[in-house]
């Protein structure tokens, strides 16, 4: 009886068995990678805004405190986006006829709000509160990155759950002293800083990984 299968079939069978494993693994890897890529998370991708507002200029250059505009960051879940009036505190005098700021003047004149494109946006089933994070020593820099170097704002972190949990599991690795919370630089260069463990003790920080801590 002649051989039904050519001897090379053995190799083909081995390769395809092995290959299938790689294929499945590969597909999974691609999915996971895509899910974590900046294509999905928008991490590091600036978004165009109605006015090309530059944090680099206002924070890095002018040296405004974060709370000058994001007024409710210490008291509310929402840090707050400044009303048009806040812009006009300075811009009624500075660059008061710049064409770039026309939408701001228009907003104040008509009473119609500016519409910013949201950059940091959590899913609706995740509940985040700025006030408690600030109170517990999580600096702006830790999550939002060096906004003083961003001409257009972008996310410096993925804001995915695994990223949240990194800190919720080991807060000592990420905490800053309260006096440095709103700074982009080291307040006292060279001085001895308290360790994360000390801050955890002092600020009574709990590792909160219960589902209901964020999902309600």
């Amino acid at each position, binding site marked *: 009886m002649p051989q039904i299968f050519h001897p090379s079939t053995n190799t083909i069978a081995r390769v395809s068995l092995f290959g299938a494993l790689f294929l499945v693994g590969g597909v999974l890897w691609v999915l996971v990678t895509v899910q974590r890529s900046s294509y999905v998370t928008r991490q590091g991708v600036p978004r165009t805004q109605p006015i090309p507002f530059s944090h680099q200029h206002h924070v890095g250059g002018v040296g405004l405190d974060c709370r000058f505009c994001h007024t409710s960051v210490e008291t509310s879940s*929402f840090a*707050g986006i400044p009303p048009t009036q806040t812009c006009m505190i300075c811009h009624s005098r500075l660059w008061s006829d710049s064409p770039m700021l026309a939408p701001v003047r228009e907003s104040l004149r008509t009473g119609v709000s500016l*519409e*910013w494109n949201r950059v940091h*946006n959590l899913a609706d089933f995740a509940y985040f509160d700025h006030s408690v994070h600030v109170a517990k020593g999580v600096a702006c820099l830790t999550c939002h990155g060096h906004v003083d170097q961003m001409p257009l704002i972008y996310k410096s972190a993925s804001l995915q759950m695994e990223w949240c949990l990194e800190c919720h599991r080991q807060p000592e690795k990420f905490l800053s002293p309260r006096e440095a919370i709103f700074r982009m630089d080291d307040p006292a260069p060279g001085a001895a800083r308290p360790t994360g463990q000390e801050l955890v003790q002092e600020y009574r920080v709990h590792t909160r990984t219960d589902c209901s801590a964020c999902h309600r």
Partner: protein
Amino acid sequence: MSDEQKNSAPFGGQGHWRSLEELADSPQVREFLEREFPEQASEWNDPAGRRQFLQLMGASLALAGLAGCSEPLGEKIVPFVRQPEDLVPGKPLRYATAVRLAASTLPVLVTSTMGRPTKIEGNPEHPDSQGATDAFTQAALLTLYDPDRSKTVTNLGGIRPYSDLLGVIRDAAEAQKGDRGAGLRILTGAVTSPTLVSQIGELLRNFPEAKWHRHEAVDGDNALAGARLAFGEAVEAHLHLDQADVILSLDADFLGGGVGRVRHAKEFAQRRRVPAEGGSDPGSRNNAMNRLYVAESMPSLTGSVADHRFRLRSSDVEALARAVAAGLGVLGVSRPADVPRLSEADLAASLGVPGAQRPASVPGISEATLTAIIKDLAKHRSRSLVVAGLAQPPEVHALVHAVNHALGNIGTTVTFHAPLDAGAIEAAPFSELANDMGAGRVQFLMVLGGNPVFTAPVDISFGDLLTKVGLTIHLGLYDDETAVRCHWHVPEAHDLESWSDARCPDGSVTLLQPLIEPLYHGKTPHELLAAFTDRPLRTSAEIVKEHWSKQIPGVLTETQWRRALHDGVVAGTALPPTAVTLRGGLGAASRESNAAAGELELVFRPDPSVYDGRFANNGWLQELPRPLTKLTWDNAALVSPATAKRLGFKSEDLVTLNVGGRRVRAPLWILPGHADDSVTVHLGYGRERVGRVGKHTGFNAYAVRQSASRWIAPDVRIEATGKRYRLATTQDHGSMEGRPLVRHATLAHYLQHPDFAQEMEEAPPAGLTMNPPVKYEGHAWGMAIDLNACTGCNACTIACQAENNIPVVGKEQVLVNREMHWIRVDRYFEGEPESPGVHHQPVPCMQCEDAPCEQVCPVAATAHSSEGLNDMVYNRCVGTRYCANNCPYKVRRFNFLQYSDYTLPTARLLFNPNVTVRTRGVMEKCTYCVQRINGVRIDAEVEGRPIRDLEILTACQQVCPSDAIVFGDLNDPRSRVTHWKAGPRNYALLGNLNTRPRTTYLASLKNPNPEISRGEE
């Protein structure tokens, strides 16, 4: 067993039942209990014909999209141009205002989230609320956002601008000037607003021949007429239940409905606390438990918590009132005809009442019992209270006043003040308006609120009379039966959209301030009446403020005004108690009883959910299982088991009620504990012109309600139609099959055996578990529910619904056991079906420490938190429903269909932003209001302080008028919940399953009179 033993033995477990079908062990109930899943649980399709539920909020089946999978793109942030001073985005604000229901006003604090009202709570500073509310007030929020509310000014169906109407009013008023307003009539509902009263007064001064009429389908006119008989003036009784040791209710449901219900429940519950545990309730001033006797036809909430309840036809209540009055020697009560067996001197001596007479016979109550009640009342002079119901004739109210006077109760347990509803005394009667309209004497009628075409007595046929009036203008929330028959209709502003003021039950005035601009350009009655003045465009805010600036001496400062708004009460406006003197010759004229013995009477009651019909389009209330009957979405003709048997009817038989030739078709429902030969129907159903929710629900009981017999109609006949009508009742849903779930005993038994509740079931030892022991560091949240305080009022269910974005599912879905309430109030009957004891038990998720649901979830969608919460993670849930199957308490709810409405704009305003809105295919259940726990925790952490006891209030706890629910930290030895749980009455539901629930119950206690044998009630 002797009567005494029967009296004092504890009860629980066997002998409790939820429906007559369960008692009879019918095959349907067996099947219901034994089904692993609810009916049709595996059917996901829903034929188009049964999709009514989808229309409930005007929804279409919209997929939630893939917003959960990746970051939603394109979301905008829209900051203010000029940020309001007090508004911090993300922080809700609370405003004091009030929500009105006819003559009853409840002072509230409304939570406003970024300018939209999202939750109503009682005003904790106000004595009439003390932080609590009721089901109606909670549901007012849904009415505010109801997309079916009328939205435009219309003239004969066509949309017109408001300015046109102002012109029409001006012209008509001008025409009336010549006749001094002889053809002008104003028709209102109850008016508790001092501003409105003064505006109407001003109008009547300008048009001296014009008249103001008032019509409320459910009013206190009988009580006022009774006060006129007794005292010669129309005064309103104000009850002080916390002062009363012995209470006799004559057909009065003072806990379940009417003016002051929330305050009554608070005060009553204070006196149900157990003396031995007095320390746990610093609020209770009196150490003795009170005793409540109730005589009524339909079992009410008040009757269900009574120590002795007597089934009496409403028409026979007068006989009881006379008997009690006679027994207490109230002057002028004619001596009953039957010959006494006890000598009157003996009786007088034993009661300590000079001139006491032997009580006349009362059907169904033995002489010994009657004597015992009278003795009990007499023994507690000035600490007792007799109350008559709104449906009782004025004579009964007058007798009750005389009895309270004889007992020295006036001034201690009951005081009097001028009526809250100014319309009840200052306005002309409604019947006079009907006469004038019929005679063509009315040219211009303003209907300010209400729906008189639907609610007026049927013999008046108000709808036809409207056609005889030259110009009719209707102001109302809905385009309803009255709106369509009037020439003009103006959308009314909701209480939460209005500036106004109102007298609360204690007589003090609360200012109403708007939480939101009128959603549908609604107008207030103030604005409409301003159209008659030379400044027709004044706003309500200006009118109300102007009124109050005239009321106080000197100038109303901005500080005073803001203080009044902030506090929710205008200082110094409480009504002073009126001194009353009893007139002689009371009750000398013995009236014929309304219905002869053996004849069927028909009793009308406001519906516990839709009231007089005004809440017919409110899905939360429609789906709320009514107390006692547990019916949803319909009303029914309620009869006793014996009467149904005698007439040959079963529950759900469609019958015709024939009242003197007027007929209405109604489904019959057998209600254990109902008086024989009596039929109770609830008003407000069977609306013709109503929004999407209220369509095709119930039957119209107004069709047989006539002016002469507005409350009790004698001689009603029930005729068979041979048809059946399916009613959606939840009474068998979530049944736990005859185990000792509600536990109760008499006070006497409890004092001897304080541990009776814990002894009723063997609890497994604490360490008996295969799971590794968990130590809860930090907080350990827990809840205790005092069944002794619970009146079964359902407020918790609605408050939970409002707080947790719980959807409405519709009648079809309730029929297949798919209602979504996170906390249900189970009602158990106990004993004979004719006159059973009633027990209420609110059942939320028990938050078991060893939770059966967690062990079966394949995707860990329900998991334990470090503080002992049984967390539900919606995003992990894949909808296997194993958890619901494994839950012994049946508290898990599954979104079989897309119940929540994502698409309707107003529904999106309504949602609590702190709670995820669930999609189809997801399991949900009580979370202990974890959003509130987290909210308080964050505030405490930011301020760097520990969480205080009672700082976190769950929605059900906060709303509870009788403070039956307490929540707190079990690791805190000084917390109230720890204290409650340490008491001997504490027991776990199905504790023998070793689920170790965090929610436990305190057994209920009754305080029966040892001189009355149990069998008699």
